[in-house]
């Protein structure tokens, strides 16, 4: 069997005295969409941010256990954090383009690495924008400010920006919660298209969304991974009472 793309071993995390993740063990499958669901404050976003070490930015964070990306422990003291973050891209809840042009936003990742020349960078920008289904809308105004785009376009720009690094994994932290239904639908379709080339992890508050697009679903509650399995099974015959209660709207 092909080894998992991401695997955690007894991952525990504290913010100060507060334990947010309690011995999470999960295996994320390659080139599939895994949805992480659960009520607010259950630790699903925190878990997501463990996979590209974004929790490092929060002071007083302590982590125990392992997070293996391609069987390499990214919390190893000698791990190269910036290199990990180019392999594991991230899109945030609120579209957050830089106050720069559309082109410069997408080119940012490859520019700071400085590995591509000018025409290669242009090709990469075009390809990423095409992959994020934004090219036709912006090809005539690449040098306008990214803020001239609509919210949905901005979010696709952020996806294009992450794709430009050619990541193996894309982490989506509630990517559609700030968008209108139409933009949301486009991003969902885009995820289904993209899973042929990247492994996608999506945190969502929207249970229906998880049902529509994910192959695997993880239900988290109070820092614990309660249930994890194929979405079709988790959604139809949940093994745990808490999962069932959440899915049927008893709490959330």
């Amino acid at each position: 069997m092909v080894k998992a793309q991401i695997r955690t071993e007894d991952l525990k995390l504290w913010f100060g005295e507060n334990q947010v993740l309690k011995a999470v063990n999960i295996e994320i499958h390659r080139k599939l969409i895994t949805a992480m669901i659960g009520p607010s404050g259950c630790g699903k976003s925190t878990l997501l941010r463990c996979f590209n070490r974004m929790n490092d930015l929060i002071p007083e964070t302590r982590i125990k256990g392992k997070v293996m990306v391609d069987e390499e422990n990214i919390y190893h003291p000698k791990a190269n954090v910036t290199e990990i973050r180019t392999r594991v891209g991230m899109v945030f809840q609120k579209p957050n383009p830089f106050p720069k042009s559309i082109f410069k936003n997408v080119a940012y990742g490859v520019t700071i690495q400085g590995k591509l020349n000018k025409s290669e960078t242009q090709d990469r920008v075009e390809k990423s924008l095409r992959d994020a289904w934004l090219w036709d809308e912006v090809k005539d105004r690449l040098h306008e400010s990214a803020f001239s785009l609509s919210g949905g376009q901005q979010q696709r720009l952020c996806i294009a920006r992450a794709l430009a690094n050619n990541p193996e994994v894309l982490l989506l932290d509630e990517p559609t919660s700030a968008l209108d239904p139409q933009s949301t639908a486009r991003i969902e379709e885009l995820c289904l298209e993209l899973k042929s080339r990247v492994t996608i992890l999506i945190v969502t508050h929207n249970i229906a969304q998880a049902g529509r697009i994910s192959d695997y679903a993880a239900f988290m509650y109070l820092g614990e991974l309660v249930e994890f399995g194929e979405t079709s099974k988790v959604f139809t015959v949940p093994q745990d009472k808490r999962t069932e209660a959440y899915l049927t709207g008893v709490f959330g």
Partner: protein
Amino acid sequence: MSKRKLTNHLGIGIIILTFLITVVFLIVFILRIFYKGYSVLSWEFLFSSPKEAMTAGGIYPAIVGTFWLTALSIALALPMGIMTAIYLKCFGRPWWFVKTVRIAINTLAGIPSIIYGLFGMAVFVNLLKLDVSLISGALTLAILALPVIINASEEALRQVPNEFREASLALGATERQTILKVLVPTALPNILTGAILAIGRVAGETAPIMFTAATFYTRILPKSLSDEVMALPYHIYALMTEGTNSAKQVPIAYGSALVLMILALAISAIAIYIRFQIRKKRKW
């Protein structure tokens, strides 16, 4: 009329009164300077040297001197101030060193400018043997401008949304790249507004340059950093306190004051215009 209405009218009345007092003082002040100064104003006044023991001629050397003092001091203070602000904002965990730096900056901001003058004389003129010179004055003014620039820059950096930093780091940028490519460019317009206000302050100061750079009278324009210079504020001070022919000197002093005031107002106007442009463009 009920008591509530009465207090209301009274309150509004007091507010309008204080407003009027401020405006009246400002208008009287500007009109007075203008009235007393405009008679000497001419192209010749702006572009020629003083003559006949300061009783005639123009103020060109003083304008040039003020220009160089201001330009040099800002050129020194701006990079230093921006880098300090970056340190305080991005790396400044609250340990004793950072706390000390902060206290130092806030204390510097509150020190009377004559103390800067004495400090500049003691350190730059005497200790470092730079003598009374353009460079001594510029260094002294740079220290004066430093807290203004640091505070403006730190505030500007603080206003950059944290999402930009997160986005940059999540794309594999290092902290240094994030600062240079995202934080500073985003904050730069506001940093520059702060710098322009510092220019306004520096251009008008008399006390810091009195013992460090300014000379009462020279017909020669500064050719090197070690030359003494004339400067507008000090020129006004000298015209009003020294010399023997006050009937001829006082109008020149008012003319110089008018030029200095217009200069300072013009600089403020630039600052306001830049800020206006930023606010128009900013969309986050």
